[in-house]
C-alpha cells in the first residue's frame, strides 16, 4: 500500500477529531451562562432533586470545566478526559455518559445497518437493470415510484407509515425496540418482537433510499456501458449474464460500494428523526433526550463519540478500498 495515501487519510482523520473536540470544548465556554448549573437550579426550584446528588453534580461540573484554570490547561484536561472516554455523568440519573451511549449504540447499528444494506442491495440491482437495454419493461414501471419515494424525507414517510400501519390498520407496533411484556433474552419471542418493531423505522429508510442507490447505479451503469471493455466483452462472445455481472455491475458498483461504506460509517449520526418518531432506543433518541433535557455532558459525549467513530470508520474504508479496486494503489502513485 502507498504510504502517501495512508498518511493523507490518517491526517484527515486526526484533523476531524481535533476539530470536533475543539468545537465541543469551545462552544460552552463561549456562552455567558452556564447551562448545567442553570438546568440544575431549574430542577432544584421545581423540587424533587436529591440535593446531595446535585452538589456532587455541580462539583463534577466545576472540576470538569475547571474554569478557574487558564484556557490551555482546561483544554489539556479536556483532552485527557476525552481520551479516557470520560464524558461525565447524565443529569437524569447520574449514570456515566459512556454507559448510556454504549447501551444505545447496538440498537442504532443493528436497525440501520440492516436497513442500509437492504436498500443498497435492492437499489443497486434495480439501477443496474434499469440501465441494461435488454431488461424487460416490467422493471421500468417502477422507476417513477422509486423516484417519488426517493424525493420524500424518510421521517415524513415514517409519519405516514405509523398512521397507516400502526393506527389505521394496527398491524405493527408504533414505538420502541421490543414489546413491553417481552423479556430481553435471546429467545424466539424476543427476536420476533425486535423484528416487528424494526420493520417500520427500517422500512421508511429502505423505501426512501432505494431510489437514491438505484438512480446512482443507473448513472454509473450507463457510463460503464460506454466503456471499451464492455464492447470487447461482447466481441469475446461472453454470455450476457456474465457481461452484465462480471464486467458491467462489477465496475459500475465501485462508487456505489464507496457510498455504502460511507453510509455504514455515518450510521451513528444517521437518522435521529426516525428514532425520535418511532421512539427507538438508539443513539439518535438519546441525543434527542439530551437536547430536550438540556443534558450537557450527554450531548457532548454523544457528539465526540459519533464524530470520532465516524472519522475512524471512514479512515478504515479508505484503507480497505484498494481491495475492491486494484487500480487505486497505482493512482495514488501517479497523480
Amino acid at each position, binding site marked *: 500500500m502507498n504510504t502517501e495515501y495512508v498518511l493523507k487519510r490518517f491526517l484527515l482523520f486526526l484533523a476531524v477529531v481535533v476539530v470536533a473536540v475543539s468545537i465541543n470544548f469551545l462552544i460552552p465556554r463561549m456562552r455567558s451562562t452556564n447551562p448545567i448549573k442553570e438546568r440544575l437550579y431549574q430542577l432544584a426550584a421545581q423540587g424533587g432533586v436529591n440535593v446531595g446528588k446535585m452538589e456532587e453534580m455541580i462539583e463534577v461540573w466545576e472540576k470538569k470545566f475547571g474554569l478557574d484554570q487558564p484556557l490551555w490547561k482546561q483544554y489539556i484536561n479536556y483532552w485527557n478526559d476525552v481520551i479516557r472516554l470520560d464524558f461525565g455523568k447524565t443529569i437524569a440519573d447520574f449514570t456515566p455518559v459512556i454507559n448510556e451511549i454504549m447501551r444505545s449504540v447496538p440498537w442504532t447499528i443493528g436497525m440501520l445497518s440492516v436497513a442500509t444494506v437492504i436498500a443498497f442491495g435492492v437499489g443497486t440491482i434495480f439501477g443496474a437493470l434499469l440501465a441494461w437495454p435488454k431488461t424487460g419493461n416490467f422493471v421500468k414501471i417502477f422507476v417513477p415510484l422509486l423516484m417519488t419515494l426517493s424525493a420524500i424525507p424518510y421521517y415524513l414517510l415514517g409519519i405516514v407509515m405509523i398512521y397507516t400501519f400502526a393506527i389505521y390498520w394496527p398491524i405493527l407496533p408504533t414505538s420502541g425496540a421490543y414489546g413491553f411484556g417481552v423479556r430481553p433474552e435471546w429467545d424466539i419471542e424476543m427476536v420476533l418482537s425486535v423484528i416487528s418493531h424494526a420493520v417500520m423505522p427500517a422500512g421508511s429508510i429502505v423505501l426512501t433510499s432505494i431510489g437514491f442507490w438505484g438512480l446512482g447505479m443507473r448513472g454509473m451503469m450507463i457510463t460503464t456501458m460506454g466503456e471499451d471493455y464492455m464492447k470487447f466483452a461482447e466481441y469475446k462472445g461472453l454470455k450476457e449474464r456474465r457481461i452484465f455481472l462480471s464486467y458491467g455491475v462489477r465496475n459500475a458498483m465501485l462508487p456505489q460500494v464507496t457510498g455504502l461504506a460511507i453510509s455504514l460509517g455515518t450510521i451513528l449520526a444517521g437518522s435521529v428523526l426516525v428514532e425520535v418518531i418511532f421512539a427507538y432506543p438508539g443513539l439518535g433518541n438519546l441525543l434527542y433526550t439530551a437536547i430536550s433535557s438540556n443534558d450537557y455532558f450527554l450531548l457532548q459525549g454523544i457528539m465526540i463519540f459519533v464524530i470520532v467513530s465516524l472519522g475512524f470508520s471512514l479512515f478504515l474504508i479508505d484503507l480497505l478500498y484498494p481491495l475492491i479496486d486494484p487500480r487505486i494503489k497505482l493512482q495514488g502513485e501517479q*497523480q
Partner: protein
Amino acid sequence: MAPLLEANKISKEYVSGTFIKKRNLALRNITFSIDETPPSITAIAGESGSGKTTMARLLAGILEKSSGDLLYKGKPISSMNSVEKITFKKEVQTIFQDPFEVYNPFYKVDHVLTTPLKKYGITSNKSDSDKMILSALEEVGLRPDETLGRFPHQLSGGQRQRIMVARAFLLRPKIIIADEPVSMVDASLRATILEELKLLREKYGISIVYITHDLTTAYQVADNILILYKGQVVEAGEVEYVINDPKHPYTKLLVDCIPQPNPDVKWGKSSESTNIENRIPNECNNNCLFCIKDGNTDSLTPMYQVNKTRTVSCVSYNKSKVCDNEDISSYFLKPKI
C-alpha cells in the same frame, strides 16, 4: 545578432506528492534557438513521454520551466516587463493538437478570431476586424460563408484546425509552435494544413516549430529535426540526413518502424529486432538514457558532431568531435528562402 527565441539549458521537472515527493524529469538541459532570418521550420519528434509536448509548452511560455532560461529577442521571459511580455505572447503563437477542444462550446467559432484582435489592441473597429478575419480565412483556404457564424461542432476537424491556423496568422506572429497539428485530422486533409504552414513561412517569414510523432510529415515539412528520447535530444540536424541516414540507434529504430506507404518497402526486410535492448551498441558504456534499462542518470552522453549539419548523443561516435557549442541549432542547415 541574438536569435529570436532561445532556450538555454532548459529543464522541466514534474513533482508530485505532498509528503513523499515523486520527481519526473520531463525535459533535460536543452539548448537550442530559432533565428529570425532566415525563417525556419524545425521539427521536434519523439514518442509519447519523450517530452515533446512539454517542449512545445515551454517554448510558448504556457508552462513554467524548472531551470534554465527562455529568451525572446535576447531577453529572458522572466525579467520582461508587461509590454515585452505581451509582445512575446503575441508573436509566439501555438496551434494545438485537438481541433475540437480548442473551441469553447459556448461560443461560435468567430469568438476565437475576434478576441485576439480586441485583446492585443490590433483593431477595435468592427469593419477592420472583419476585413482582417476574412483575409486570414482566405489565406488558409477557407470560405468565410462556410465557417463564420457557426458553432464548432458544425464544422469538420480539418476546418476547425485551419481556423486555428488562421487565428495564429491573424496576429502576424514571428513564430508558430504547432503541437501535432494534424494528428487528429483525417489523412485526406493533413496535406493541406501542412502545406499552409509551409506557405506561412515562405510568404510571411514565420518560423515554425513542428512538434510531431510522425517522421514522414516531419521529413516533408521541416528543414531540421530534433529527436527527443526521455527528455533528452539524442540526435539533431538536417532532416534529409537524420531520416534517411540515422546515426543514433534510437533514431534508427524509429525510422525502421515508419510504416512506409509503399508495399515494396516492407518493415520485415530490416530483420533487426524492434526491442530497444537489442539495439544497444556493443561499445556502449551503459551510461546514457537509451542504454540504461528504466534508467535515470545525470551523466548524459555528450553530443558529438558527426558531420556539418548533424549532432548525435551516442558513444558509438566518440571518435567525432564533441560539440563545442551547446546550442544544437548552431549546427543546423540554414534554409534558403
